[in-house]
């Protein structure tokens, strides 16, 4: 049994952070239509917003690489998308990330980080430690946001270079930003 808290302290403002809404507004402004995701607690607020928005199609995946292929198809069909996942899912995508170089399509992914900043679960650490490196080896530009007030400008820059310049880009949303998952018996 485990419970999530928005560490380190539980004020009302931190229980419902505003940065997921900042991301949502940017995605709307860039006319993002397809939002494939593998759920993560750090993305839960954004996923709820997307599910409640008729102009956006939320697409739950069985594995993250499906989302890379989906976004390639979406672009061929004239739509933009964004892939939401956790750092552990990045390794699942490696071969499919070839599509970003083959098709030069506007690939944007927002990745919530685990395995850093006070991580309790050692099983998250190996993939969390190699997440940025895996993206870079795959030809994806990596940006990172670690504090609530910088999420907006980082995601805006990422969306700009992905959608305007077809530069495949990943934004790592630090565990420091999201809060370490708390496990209790």
């Amino acid at each position, binding site marked *: 049994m485990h419970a999530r808290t928005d560490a380190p302290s539980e004020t009302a403002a931190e229980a419902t952070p505003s940065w997921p809404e900042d991301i949502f507004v940017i995605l709307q402004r860039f006319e993002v*239509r397809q939002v494939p995701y593998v759920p993560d607690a750090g993305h839960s607020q954004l996923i709820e917003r997307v599910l409640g928005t008729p102009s956006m199609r939320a*697409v739950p995946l069985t594995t993250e690489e499906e989302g890379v292929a989906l976004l390639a*198809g*979406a672009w061929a*069909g004239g739509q933009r998308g964004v892939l939401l996942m956790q750092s552990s899912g990045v390794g699942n995508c490696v*071969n499919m990330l*070839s599509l970003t170089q083959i098709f030069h*399509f506007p690939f944007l992914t927002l990745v919530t980080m685990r395995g850093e900043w006070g991580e309790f679960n050692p099983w998250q650490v190996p993939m969390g430690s190699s997440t940025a490196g895996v993206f870079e080896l795959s030809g994806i530009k990596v940006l990172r946001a670690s504090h609530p007030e910088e999420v907006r400008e980082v995601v805006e820059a990422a969306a700009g270079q992905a959608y305007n310049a077809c530069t495949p880009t990943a934004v790592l949303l630090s565990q420091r930003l999201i809060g370490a998952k708390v496990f209790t018996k």
Partner: protein
Amino acid sequence: MSQANLLERPNLLERRSVVNQLLAQRKDAVVVGGLGASTYDIAAAGDHDRNFYLWGAMGGAVMIGLGVALAQPKLPVVVITGDGEMLMGMGSLATVGLQKPGNLTIIVLDNEVYGETGGQASHTAGTADLVGIARACGIADVRAISTMAEVEAFASSMQDISSGPRFASIKIDSANLERVLASRDGGFIVTRIRGALGFGPI
């Protein structure tokens, strides 16, 4: 089942005839071909500016088709792939089952072997039943096709953009045919499809 046994099985369909029949009246359909022989089959049926050839991304054909289908709900979108490619992306059938795009058709040309790599047996030669898997993933219209008459009937149903998603497994013989090489230039392929659908470059 060994390759030799497969070749001896009578009444298996011939892949190029099947794909020719499927695409003879394709109209405005976008057609995605999975890595391997299915892409050659689509090219052999005639190059087309709405053909989405894959030379890699094994396991991704159905998801690419889903992305196109959701973006273009009024166009028929047809994925034609092989059993090995489908097995690698089996989870995508569950994702399609959930999204239920009415305009998406998935066709597996099932020769029960990995033909590109020396004819090693695939799981469909043994225990895996892709038709059952597709049905269990929530795709209501699933068929096992074994005659050209069924292929012909299925080809016309592909044009109905409201009654999908649909899935067909077509057992074919495992003969290796001459490769018909489609374009390998991904930028060209996608730009050409986008152009055909009215979208320009960035």
